[in-house]
């Protein structure tokens, strides 16, 4: 496996469609990978549309990064713990989380698992060990290192912990702390740096002078692997190897997937202000879905018909879930006081009473509106 500054690739570039099948992947697996990537793309397109139509307040697409995420997700074990980023909903789709769960969160409605407490894309899904996402960049990285240490302390042998973050995330305090602690502890943690070339408008060369992001592993005495992030099979292999090592007690790995953010940073962003169009065009030619489709087709594992049928099925699922989530009411106003503490303290009981009294006296509270980031 390539380390540091070399690049690990399995499928040759688009147009050639050559490359071996990674060990351990049968035809069903290969198709499952494609399904999840396509699902993600459709989910992203729909999410952006919903936002443009003003039906949800905000959305973060992952267009272009499907291979980087799905390849990793497929290498995860059942008991593994995920510390995701706001751009990795693909992993929930891969793991079969009901779509309604995701759309409920995008709407922040009454059945939303996080009770409408956070902006869209900030999921928390205990059923798949998906830890609550927060907006501050990087905080999940040291937490993941701690969770991996906890698995060691408990003696849980088949657990690896995965932290996702971007190229920008490598500059955070928690990147430094998390990788350093994990290195010292030899904790079973895999640090997934998706280098999509941008931190909103800041390009990678303004993010760091290091030759690659994978190279930063040197500073923590851990293995660093750089992989073609648009090559789902290469990503899978790298992630798989990192997990094997983690489980065997050989320590953490920093994986850099070199990929590209093919959409805006979020529904609030317009890359035209800062991104040269040629760059986008160059990367569009390396679209991870096109590339993988071509490879599958060359292996006779995929066809246009299959894809049309799949897309139709997925779109239907999406439509159903969207409708269900959209027609679910908002959370009850009094839930605003819950879950600050395990039990409601006196001050919050009083604040709730005051709110009740006010609503009784002067009617429901008007929604103030507001759009992100305006």
């Amino acid at each position: 496996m390539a380390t540091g500054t070399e690049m690990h690739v399995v499928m040759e570039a688009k147009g050639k469609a050559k490359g071996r099948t990674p060990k351990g992947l049968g035809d069903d697996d290969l198709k499952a990978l494609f399904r999840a990537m396509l699902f993600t793309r459709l989910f992203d397109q729909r999410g952006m549309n919903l936002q443009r139509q003003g039906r949800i307040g905000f959305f973060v697409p992952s267009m272009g990064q499907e291979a980087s995420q799905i390849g990793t997700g497929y290498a995860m074990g059942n008991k593994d713990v995920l510390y995701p980023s706001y751009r990795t909903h693909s992993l929930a789709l891969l793991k079969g989380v009901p779509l309604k769960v995701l759309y409920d969160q995008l709407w922040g409605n009454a059945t939303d698992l996080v009770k409408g407490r956070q902006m869209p894309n900030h999921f928390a899904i205990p059923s798949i060990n998906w830890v609550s996402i927060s907006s501050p960049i990087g905080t999940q990285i040291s937490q993941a290192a701690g969770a991996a240490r906890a698995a060691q302390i408990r003696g849980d042998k088949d657990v690896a912990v995965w932290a996702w973050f971007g190229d920008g995330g490598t500059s955070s305090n928690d990147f430094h702390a998390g990788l350093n602690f994990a290195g010292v502890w030899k904790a079973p943690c895999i640090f997934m740096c998706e280098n999509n070339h941008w931190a909103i408008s800041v390009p990678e060369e303004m993010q760091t002078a290091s030759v690659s992001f994978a190279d930063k592993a040197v500073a923590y005495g851990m293995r660093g692997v750089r992989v073609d992030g648009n090559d789902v099979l290469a990503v899978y292999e790298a992630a798989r190897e990192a997990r094997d090592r983690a489980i065997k007690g050989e320590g953490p790995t920093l994986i850099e997937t070199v990929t590209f953010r093919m959409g805006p940073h979020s529904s609030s962003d317009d890359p035209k202000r800062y991104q040269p169009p040629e760059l986008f065009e160059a990367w569009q030619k390396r679209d991870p879905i096109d590339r993988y489709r071509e490879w599958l087709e060359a292996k006779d594992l995929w066809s246009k018909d299959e894809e049309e049928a799949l897309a139709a099925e997925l779109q239907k699922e999406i439509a159903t879930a969207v409708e269900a989530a959209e027609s679910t009411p908002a959370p009850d106003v009094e839930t605003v006081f819950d879950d600050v503490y395990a039990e409601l303290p006196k001050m919050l009981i009083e604040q709730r009473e005051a709110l009740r009294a006010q609503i009784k006296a002067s009617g429901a509270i008007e929604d103030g509106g507001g759009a992100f980031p305006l």
Partner: protein
Amino acid sequence: MPQMTMLQAINDAMHVAMERDPDVVMLGEDIGKKGGVFGATDGLYDKFGALRVMDTPLSECGIIGTAVGMALYGLKPVPEIQFLDFIYPAFDQIVSEMAKMRYRSGGQFTCPMVVRSPSGGGIRGGHYHSQSSEAYFAHTPGLRVVMPSTPADAKGMLLASIFNEDPVIFLEPKALYRHGKQEVQEGWYTTSLDEARRVREGDDVTVVTWGAMVPIVEDAAGTAAENGVACDVIDLRSILPWDYDTVLDSVRKTGRLVVVQEAPRTCGFASEVAATVAEKAIDSLEAPIARVTGFDTPFPYALEHVYKPDKKRVLGAIEFTARWA
């Protein structure tokens, strides 16, 4: 005079400051080509170049830490923190370094710099794009903490902050960025960082507030006036050091006080206002001091409008206080 939104006024202030003094430099995430996520730094990069308008790596710790070093070297850095919610990775540099530099060095080293950051709710940003954290900074001697509520104040106070000797936390109420336009003087001028602003005169109830709550309080005070209660509305503008004399004078006149803040209730700056009045003007008080605040919860997403004090809540407190006998 041109009409400007607060965002335009802030942008204008930075243009004026950078033209006036080559030592003024800006740094932060996405402030260059993108011009900031709200557009506050629009045009500065094109005009003053990459050496004076620096896009940085994603590290608030680094943004403030390096800015402190620049200030120590003699520059006047104006770092931007993209959202106030993201200032915490730099909290150590702010409270341990920037705030204490002058004191700990016996006055030999100083950090004249201005940390700009959009503050508060109003954009459906949930937990991490909405917090009002002025109280943390207000409890930190050595800092100035200011928060304008109008375009004209925003420009004048930003210029006063940049050309002032103390480190300043300059909070921009993002809900007011595009709230409306006002005539704003062109070119150079400054607005006092030491004086509160009387927004409305009245003899019945003093209402003290700051930032994005100002127009909400104005609105409530307007309705209260229709109902026969005349409010003396004070926009603090500066939170630390703050102009308690103006507040005390007003309370001595009205005998009644309502303090309105967007931040959570416990140990917010409204508590300081109340405590100071209860210490220095208790004899004038004819009613309990009412605080209207955000709840003691994190900032919610779907229920933002329930969390944030609105006109009804403010009006309720004004009427309660006015009626007390």
